[in-house]
Structures are given as structure tokens and as C-alpha cells.
């Protein structure tokens, strides 16, 4: 049983059928996640990182539809499941924390009500037991006076507090996988530090896996075991944190790293941005989606999608340039 990864996504394709045409939000996305690992998905808006997460939860919204590929999670075939079957695992085996804690809690129910709802739905605990569990959860996520807080409404809490409540709800049934969709983007840095620390602490305690979706490279750098970099609905590079930060192979990953100013630089270094505009998903380029913005674009890049080049077991990227290098190295090797 242990050789089966917790989550296995294979060749997932997902499109939104809008009046203006088909938007390919995910274009052949594959990755695995082992039990207890933290995977970071980074990318810009529209790169498909949130859509990936939502598809694991079975939350693909109309007019979106999975058009191909498979999602295997903990023995379930998510891509085949009905809404009713999905409801039995959503919140229990896999749960999600959304970006904006201001809008993801229901304003007309108390905090206690919303935590107990999850517990009562997935376990056969009585009202009193559920309440006791809710108190326990709130102290787990570091909220003082849990008894009093349970009676409060979301508007009475600060942003950081609300995100803690969201985490409490997500963890209520000790899920195997927690998806965090930009959990700290709406929060201030000092609060962000609190929440990230809390998530790592809870991960150790409960032993769940985490998928961390963010656009902040700083956040993934110290939290994640593996990082997937997405661009225009495709994973363009995948590797360990060290691979991505110290040995990036894709031009897009490199561009991202040179785009962010370094806080500890003593001299003023000019930023090297990625030129051009984000890709228009309604009319994506024929070949590599990044080709129009790429400094090292070749003819083939405009025509064909590059296959993955593997540098080590868990470091690969999709770029013709690395394909070419590998091909040349192999040719050179043959001669000797």
C-alpha cells in the first residue's frame, strides 16, 4: 500500500467553455504527492494553479469541465466520482483553505456552528461531542478563549483569526491532504508568518500532506519539499526546492527568480523582468506557451510543445533548449 502515492494526477486536461471559446485552463498536468510531503505550486494569475487544486476537491465550476486525464487520491478515482460521493470525502479526507478569509466564512452563522457542521457531517459525534472537538480545534490553531470565540460571528474576528478558523474547519476531520490556496496572500506579513508557522506545526502533529498554492516564491522556499512551476496550464518545471532555486532549467523559472528583488542585496541591482504580457488563454500560441516571452526562443518552440527533460528523478522541465542540450550530450557520448 505504501508504494501507491497519496495523490496521483495523470494527464489532466480541464477546459472552460466560455461564449468566447474554449479556454484550456489545464493542459496535460501530471504529478504525484507522497504521504506527508509538502508540494508548492507557483505560477502567475491564470496559470492554472487554483484550478488544479479545485479539481482535486471536485469543485470545478461551470462552465469548466475535466476533458481528459485521471485523478487518483487515496484509493478514490476522483474524475469518475459523482457529486454525492465527492461530498463524503470532501472535508474529511481532503480539505481546502481559501485565499480570502473575509469571504470564505458564512457571515450569518457563528464560528462554532460552522466548525460543528463539518464534524457532525462526517462523524457520528453528538452535538456535545462536536462542541468539545470544536473547542479543542480552536485551541489547536492558537485561538485564545475558544468557548467565547465559538459564539462569535466572522465579522467579529480579524483576518488572521478568520484564517485560523478556516484552518480549524479544514482540519476538523484530520484530512490526509490539505490544500492551501494562497492562504496568506490577503494577510499582512507578520500575520502571514504566524499562519505559515502554524501550518507547519500542525503538519508535524497530524502528519497530513499539504499542497501550497501561491505566487510568492518566498513562501514556497522554506515550506515545500517539492515545487511545481506552472505557466499557462502546464507544469513547466518540477523539482525540489533546491533544484528550483539553485539549478533552474526552464527560462520561465529563471525569469521569475531574477524578477524579485533580494532583500539582502547591499548593492542596487537592476531587476531582470520577463518581457511581454501574460499569455492569452483563449488564443494560446501553438507550441510552447512561454515561447513568445522567451529570450532563447527557437523555431521549433513556436511549432511544437516540448516534452519533459529529466535531470534527476524528481527534477524535470519542459523546454526544447534542455532537450537540445541533452541530445547533443548524448550524441557526443556516442562518439567517444
Amino acid at each position: 500500500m505504501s508504494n501507491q502515492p497519496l495523490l496521483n494526477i495523470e494527464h489532466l486536461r480541464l477546459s472552460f467553455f466560455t461564449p468566447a471559446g474554449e479556454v484550456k485552463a489545464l493542459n496535460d498536468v501530471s504529478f504525484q504527492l507522497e504521504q506527508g510531503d509538502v508540494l508548492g505550486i507557483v505560477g502567475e494569475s491564470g496559470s492554472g494553479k487554483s484550478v488544479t487544486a479545485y479539481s482535486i476537491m471536485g469543485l470545478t465550476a461551470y462552465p469548466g469541465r475535466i476533458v481528459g486525464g485521471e485523478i487518483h487520491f487515496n484509493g478514490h478515482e476522483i474524475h469518475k466520482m459523482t457529486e454525492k460521493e465527492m461530498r463524503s470525502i470532501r472535508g474529511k479526507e481532503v480539505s481546502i483553505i481559501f485565499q480570502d478569509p473575509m469571504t470564505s466564512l458564512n457571515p450569518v452563522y457563528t464560528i462554532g456552528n460552522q466548525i460543528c457542521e463539518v464534524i457532525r457531517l462526517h462523524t457520528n459525534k453528538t452535538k456535545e461531542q462536536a462542541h468539545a472537538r470544536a473547542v479543542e480545534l480552536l485551541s489547536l490553531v492558537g485561538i485564545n478563549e475558544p468557548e467565547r470565540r465559538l459564539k462569535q460571528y466572522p465579522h467579529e474576528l480579524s483576518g488572521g483569526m478568520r484564517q485560523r478558523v478556516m484552518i480549524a474547519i479544514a482540519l476538523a476531520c484530520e484530512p490526509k491532504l490539505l490544500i492551501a490556496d494562497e492562504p496568506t496572500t490577503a494577510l499582512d506579513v507578520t500575520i502571514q508568518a504566524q499562519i505559515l508557522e502554524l501550518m507547519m506545526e500542525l503538519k508535524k502533529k497530524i502528519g497530513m500532506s499539504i499542497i501550497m498554492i501561491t505566487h510568492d516564491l518566498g513562501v514556497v522556499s522554506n515550506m515545500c519539499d517539492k515545487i511545481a512551476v506552472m505557466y499557462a496550464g502546464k507544469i513547466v518545471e518540477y523539482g525540489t526546492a533546491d533544484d528550483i532555486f539553485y539549478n533552474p532549467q526552464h527560462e520561465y523559472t529563471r525569469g521569475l527568480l531574477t524578477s524579485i528583488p533580494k532583500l539582502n542585496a547591499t548593492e542596487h541591482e537592476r531587476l531582470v523582468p520577463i518581457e511581454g504580457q501574460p499569455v492569452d488563454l483563449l488564443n494560446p500560441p501553438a507550441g510552447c506557451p512561454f515561447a513568445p516571452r522567451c529570450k532563447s526562443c527557437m523555431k521549433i518552440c513556436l511549432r511544437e510543445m516540448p516534452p519533459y527533460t529529466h535531470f534527476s528523478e524528481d527534477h524535470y522541465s519542459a523546454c526544447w533548449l534542455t532537450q537540445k542540450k541533452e541530445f547533443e550530450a548524448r550524441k557526443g557520448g556516442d562518439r567517444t
Partner: protein
Amino acid sequence: MSEKLIEVEHLKQYFDVGSSMFKKKYVKAVDDVSFFINKGETLGLVGESGCGKTTTGRTLLRLYKPTGGKIIYDGKDITNVDMLPYRRKMQIVFQDPYASLDPRMTVADIVGEPLDIHKLAATKKEREEIIIEMLRRVGLNSEHANRYPHEFSGGQRQRIGIARALAVRPEFIVCDEPVSALDVSIQAQVVNMFEDLQESMGLTYLFIAHDLSIVKHISNRIGVMYLGKLVELADSNEVIFHSLHPYTKSLISAIPIADPKTSRASKRIVLQGDVPSPLNPPSGCRFRTRCPYATELCAQKEPEFREVSSGHYAACHHLDKIN
């Protein structure tokens, strides 16, 4: 010694938030803030949401009527004067490029409107020339002039907002979180553009942002705000590498560094609790409720914002003990 372009003395901006039976209630968004900006310099202003950085920027431009204090622009007190002539010299770029452009105006009209108001173009042809010149400066071209904002991406919209600010050839621009709504790769483009424009047009910036790495990158000096007060102000490198105030220290250590080895090695100071409500700020030092060094003195007496070393200001009672 370089010349001061803007000087702010004891600036106060209180917002009336209704009154209880006898007492009026205020949010002290900016409370007794003093600083200056030299000609051609970029002053960065950082802090968490609600700390008053945006309000400081807007009050500086007299978009709000200041409750107290003085604003001096180029040697003249502008606290109570007619702002129209000064609006040509002082401009602003807003945070959200989706909300700050009128969706029913073409790009040419958006950029041209300030020209009409200040009567800077004598003929239609001249107006058009200036508009195209401005679009070119921000990396757009004449084809874009007749389109509407919704046809552009976020980064391009921010460029339009910048072109509008530049149209009147200002001397001073308040940049209010101009890149925080943009994607990382586009942020770098816009930041570089701000730097180029500063050099070619001799601009002075007040650069407001919550992202300390970006502020540090673009600013000569940085001011750190907390709950309506400036707590530290110094040279950018001074602030980052030799910060004095405990809030600045924790703010710097809270920033996730995009470098796995450094971030694994560094120890974080994680501040406990939330920012208190500005409606009812703590007595004495406003940071004391979250400060690891707070003592009784901090609750009783407000620390003075003083010059600790040349050009390095900080407001804390325990600077000697901490550093």
C-alpha cells in the same frame, strides 16, 4: 546637501467615525508624522494594512484636508492653499489598475484629461502628440490610444495610469502600492520603468508598499509606519541591515526569503497577536502590546521620534537595551 522638495511637519489626519453621546470618535489614521523628501529622491513607506501609509500619501497631496500639521512643497506652505496649480506638479499612481481607470473613456482621453484641465495643449494636434509621447514613454504605442481599459492586461493598465500621471510633467509622484496588484514578472517590468522615468524626467517619488523587498529595491530612504506613527526612518540599507526598532526587526524577519538555504537557516521573530484597532490604540508606545521588550514605561509615555545616528530616526524607549 541636497534640496528638500517636500517637508511634512507633525502631520495629523483623523477620520470622524461618528460620535457617542458626548465624545466624538476618531480614527487617528496618521498621528504626528514628520519627514522630508529631497529632490530626485525616492522615499519608501512600508507598514501593514491600516498603518496609515496610504493616508499619509493622500494627505500629502491634499486629497484629504489635514487635521493638523504642515505640508511644505518647494519652500511654500501648501496646507491651506488652492491646490490646482500644485496638482500639475504633484501626481499619484493608484494601487488597483482595474478600479482607477474610467471604463468608458478611451486611453487617449484618460491620458489627455489632465492636459485639458491644466490647459497644457494649445491645439488638438499638440494634445495628441503629447498623449502619444506619454504612451511611448511607458512602453505602449499609438495603436493603444483609441482602445478602452478593459482591452488591456493588469500590467498594461498600470502603465496607462502612469502615463496619465506623467502627462502634466509633474515633479513629484506618490506611488501608492503601484505594483502589488501585478504578477511577479510584470512587477519587475513596472519597477524598472519607474526607475527609468525617474532618471529621464528627474522625478521625486513617495513609494508606498507593504512589500519591503520592493520598497528596499527602489528607495533611497525608507520610513516604517505602525498604527499611524512613523517608528523608524533611515537610509534603505540602514533600515534593512541595521534596524533599530523592534517592529522593523520583526517585520524584516517575517518576510519569507526566496532562497531555501537562507530561509532554513534564519530564525524568525514571529510577532504574537494582531494589530490593535486604530479606533482605540494602546496608550504610550503603540507597538507595546506586541513588543517583546515592552515595559511599564512604554505604557505610560510615548517614545520620542529622535535622530539616533546621522539620518537614522527611531521611536523607542529601549533602543540601547535592544541593540
